[in-house]
Each structure stands twice: as C-alpha cells, then as structure tokens.
C-alpha cells in the first residue's frame, strides 16, 4: 500500500485549472522530486497532501485512508505530515528550541522536559545544537531552514513535504540544507520534495516528476529523466536549469 497516493486529483482556483488529473504514488521510504516551471502547480500539489489547500475532485490516500474526506481530523492528519516552506516561516518571537518544541507540547501533550530533550537531539542532528537558545533572526538562512526541518521532524511525521526549501537561500548555504535532507532520505523518510536541485534528485530521489500547466508531463527514475526526457517542455526546462 502506498504511503501517499494521488488519484485523479483536480483543483481549480476559480476558473483556473491548477491541478489536472494528478495520479501519483509514493511508496513508504521513497523520495519523490517534483520539478517544473514556476506556476505549474507544484506547491499546490504538495500542499494538498496536508490540506493547506483543498482539492476539488479525486482523492488523496495516505496508507490507504482517504485523507481528503470531509470528516478527516485535520490537526491529527497534519501532526503526521511535516512541511518545510521556502520562506522557513519560523516563529520569530520565541527561541529556536521553542520553535521545535511548541507542537509536540501543545498537540501531543509531551512534557516540557521530554520535548526539550528531543528538541536538542533534533537540533544536534541538523547541526545547530549550540544555537538552541537564540532567536531565529540571529541565525543565517541555512540555519533557519535546518531549524524548520527540525521543527517538522519533532512531530515524528510519517511523511515530509518540502516546498522549494533551498530557493530562498544564498548559494553557499544550499548544501548544508540539502545534506540534512539527504540524510533524512537515507534514513528512510518518505519525502515529497519540490526542488530544482538536481544533485539532490540524482542522489536520493526514487522518482522525478515534471509538471507544467497543472499536469504531470514526465515521470520516471532520475537517471532516465535527466538523460532521456521525452517531452519537449521537459527538455527545454532541463536545458535551462542544468
């Protein structure tokens, strides 16, 4: 049974058909990379998985459960799915450690001491243990994004969504974030990543899909996608980013 399955998913913004019949399966432990030009619907697609956006037709399944049902408990669903945004979106008014421990304490009722121990462990894992008591703004972009990853992992999610996690970063900080993501992939996390970082796709992706105009135009294993794309628009896109 797939960890995440999109089945005939459609979505409209008013008249604008932003997702057109998306069908896709991501097995447990797999990494799916989603690429495509700006405005093609990549963000929308991943944000539908944790219901930050609602689909209009079709269904999305997580381990066989239809998670797009009206009766779904959204807070519970979201506690099982981590998301990392392009703009980090750390909470600026509390320390880095508190950014990480807020949800475990409030949503899962984990004790403060336990949450902090786990938070420090996670911050250690993403390489910023010694910044735990600083405010987000005192950290570099790369460090902030790693905190955001730790914050998502603190809920022990089954799936992680990444929406262009390195696009807002200075080039010299991209790798520190990608390395954390690669480690995570190798540890067996199921990941849906919108990214144009081809090194990441080559090293850890199980599948790459190429989207344009709300459709999946091309899909396959990374080496296939990079060396032998079928669709003209995929070829043009690859030429541009490589």
């Amino acid at each position: 049974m797939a960890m995440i399955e999109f089945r005939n998913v459609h979505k409209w913004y008013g008249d604008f058909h932003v997702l057109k019949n998306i069908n896709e399966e991501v097995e447990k432990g797999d990494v799916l990379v989603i690429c495509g030009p700006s405005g093609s619907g990549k963000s929308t697609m991943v944000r539908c998985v944790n219901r930050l956006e609602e689909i209009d037709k079709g269904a999305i399944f997580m381990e066989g459960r239809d998670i797009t049902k009206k009766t779904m408990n959204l807070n519970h669903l979201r506690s099982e799915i981590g998301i990392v945004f392009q703009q980090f979106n750390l909470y600026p008014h509390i320390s880095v450690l508190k950014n990480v421990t807020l949800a475990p304490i409030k949503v899962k009722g984990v004790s403060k001491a336990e949450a902090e121990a786990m938070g420090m462990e996670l911050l250690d894992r993403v390489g910023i243990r010694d910044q735990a008591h600083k405010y987000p703004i005192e950290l570099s972009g790369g460090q902030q994004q790693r905190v955001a990853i730790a914050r998502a992992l603190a809920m022990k999610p089954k799936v992680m969504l990444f929406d262009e996690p390195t696009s807002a970063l200075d080039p010299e900080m991209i790798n520190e974030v990608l390395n954390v993501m690669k480690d995570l992939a190798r540890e067996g996390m199921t990941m849906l990543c919108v990214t144009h970082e081809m090194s990441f796709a080559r090293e850890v992706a199980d599948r790459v899909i190429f989207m344009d105009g709300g459709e999946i135009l091309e899909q396959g294993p990374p080496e296939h996608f990079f060396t032998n794309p079928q669709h003209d628009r995929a070829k043009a896109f690859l030429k541009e980013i490589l």
Partner: protein
Amino acid sequence: MHWDIVWNNFDYFLIGAYPEGPLGGMAMSILLALGGIFGAFWLGLLFGLMRLSKQKWIKWPAVVYIEIIRGTPLLMVIFWFYFLAPIVLGYTLPETSSALVAFIVFTSAYIAEIVRAGVIALPKGQTEAARGTGLSHYQTMVHVILPQSLRNMIPSFVNQFVSLTKDTSLAYIIGVNELMRTATQVNNRTLIAPTEIFITIAVLYFIICYVLTATSRRLEKQLSKYQARGN
C-alpha cells in the same frame, strides 16, 4: 493674572478632595482611562477575534457591534449607559461606573478593529507553519499569532489610550468629578481666572498624552527587532 488661584487649587486639580473627600481631578481622569483601556482591551480582543471567524454566527454579532459603536458619538454612548442603565437594571449606576462602562464599550470597538488589522497583517506563512504542525486554530492564535501581532499593535493601543484619556473629559457632563469638571468647578467659584485655569488643565492633559506617546515610541523601537519576514 491670577495664577495664585491655580496654585491654591492645584492639589484639587490633581486628586480632587482626596483624602478627606472623594478622589477626583487628574487622578480620576487617569483611573478612568486606565480602567477603560484595560476593559476595552479584553472586550476588543474578543470582538476582534470573533470578527475574524469564518463561522457566520460568531462573526456577525461582532460586525454589528463594531459598526454600531463606531458610528455613534462617544457622548451618546455615555448618555445611553447613564440614562438607560436605570431602565434596564432597575437601579441607577453611579456616574463614575456608567462612564467607565461607556468608555470600555466605546473603545472596545476600535480595539477590535486594531486586533483584526494586526492579525491580518502577519505573514500568512506563520499560520500555515503552525497549522502545518497540527496546532488548532485556537492554539495557533494563542501561541503564534497573538504574541506577535499584539506586540505590533502596541503603538495603536497607545494611540487609543491617548484618545481615551482626552475623551474622559466628556464624563464631566454626567457629573463625574474628573479633571475637566474640577476645573469648571473652580472657575465657577472664582470667576476671575478662566484663562489661567484652562491653560493649566490643557498642560496637564498634554503632559499625560506626551508621556504616553514618548513611551510608545521607545517601545516600538525595541519591539521592531523580532518580527516575522516574508510571506
């Protein structure tokens, strides 16, 4: 000039007949403004959050409340509570209490709008990040949105507080012994020094408001440090 009249009555302007008699004067004005802003903060927060709700039956009463109050002169609200309270409650509210209630109700409508604008002004990513980890709407408000947006609202709250401080002078009409009324009393009694008396009163109002505004400006600078960026 008769500045001696001002001087001889200066403590009356400041604290009324206190401690022998009831508190009044500037102290009463400040107390009314403080009590007013405190009550209005909580009531305004409630109505502001209600107005942001997607649920119609929560949002609608707030919209009606806010729009009616904002479309009514303060003096009329003061009269409402002064003349209607006996009819509704069956007994007369003391002048000071009914003025205080009027200030709270009146100011809360403006605070509600400040709260609404402040919450909307925060980057959407803050809510998405919080909801994305499984926090409920309420938890997101309490732990993520309000701590940030309330800080950003402090200058607007102080503005409202300054307005209210000046507006407490309207309570004189229903007989509350605040700064304006003590001045009028002394003037009616002495008759020869209206200019001196009302200049003094103006200076006293100015000092309160100036101190508040200056404090707010300092706070604003300190608070601008930790703010969310991006969207």
